[in-house]
């Protein structure tokens, strides 16, 4: 299937466990992003990647780890899950570029992963 997919769609885990959320895109977009969305906070950027093997922190990176060995995959790992990491996680991708190109300003979002940490 073309597009951007996330797995699992729903996950329940316990405090202290390691959890990995997967993200896969078929467009060969250079950029990929991980966000969390919480009531009262909106979408907050966790990490992003400009290309394979290049990652950078966003607004709320603590407690998360990312890697990007292949252009199409961008997994997000919670090394030791905490209850405060209960959230909806969205992966997104976009083309590279600059300035006024619409494609550069459009991020394509996956369907989200609902994570509950007990």
């Amino acid at each position, binding site marked *: 299937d073309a597009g951007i997919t996330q797995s699992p769609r729903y996950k329940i885990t316990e405090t202290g466990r390691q959890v990995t959320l997967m993200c896969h895109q078929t467009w060969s977009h250079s950029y990929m992003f991980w966000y969390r969305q919480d009531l009262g906070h909106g979408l907050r*950027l966790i990490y992003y990647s*400009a290309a394979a093997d290049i990652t950078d922190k966003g607004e709320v990176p603590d407690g998360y780890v990312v890697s990007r060995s292949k252009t199409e995959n961008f997994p997000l790992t919670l090394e030791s899950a905490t209850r405060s990491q209960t959230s909806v996680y969205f992966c997104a991708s976009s083309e590279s570029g600059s300035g006024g190109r*619409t494609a550069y300003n*459009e991020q394509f*979002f996956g369907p989200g992963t609902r994570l509950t940490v007990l």
Partner: protein
Amino acid sequence: QKEVEQDPGPLSVPEGAIVSLNCTYSNSAFQYFMWYRQYSRKGPELLMYTYSSGNKEDGRFTAQVDKSSKYISLFIRDSQPSDSATYLCAVRRDDKIIFGKGTRLHILP
């Protein structure tokens, strides 16, 4: 001060009304402004994108940017129940997009 401020609502209007959604932003250097729409339990999707000041129209939707007051607006004419969603304003900062918290909109049939 948050880079992008948006009233979370919810905002309820009757079908057929004109809807006005607004945001303010803090950095006068921002040049690219976007509106994303998010349906319940879905990811956001780009609705409209504008560069610098001025208006942009797409069907029933008009996006407006006033850089002098750092104000971003989205107008929806002849609103439909299918327009019920959360609308997120956004600005581009370097290679990232900064989102507002989103306004929940309900169009009442």
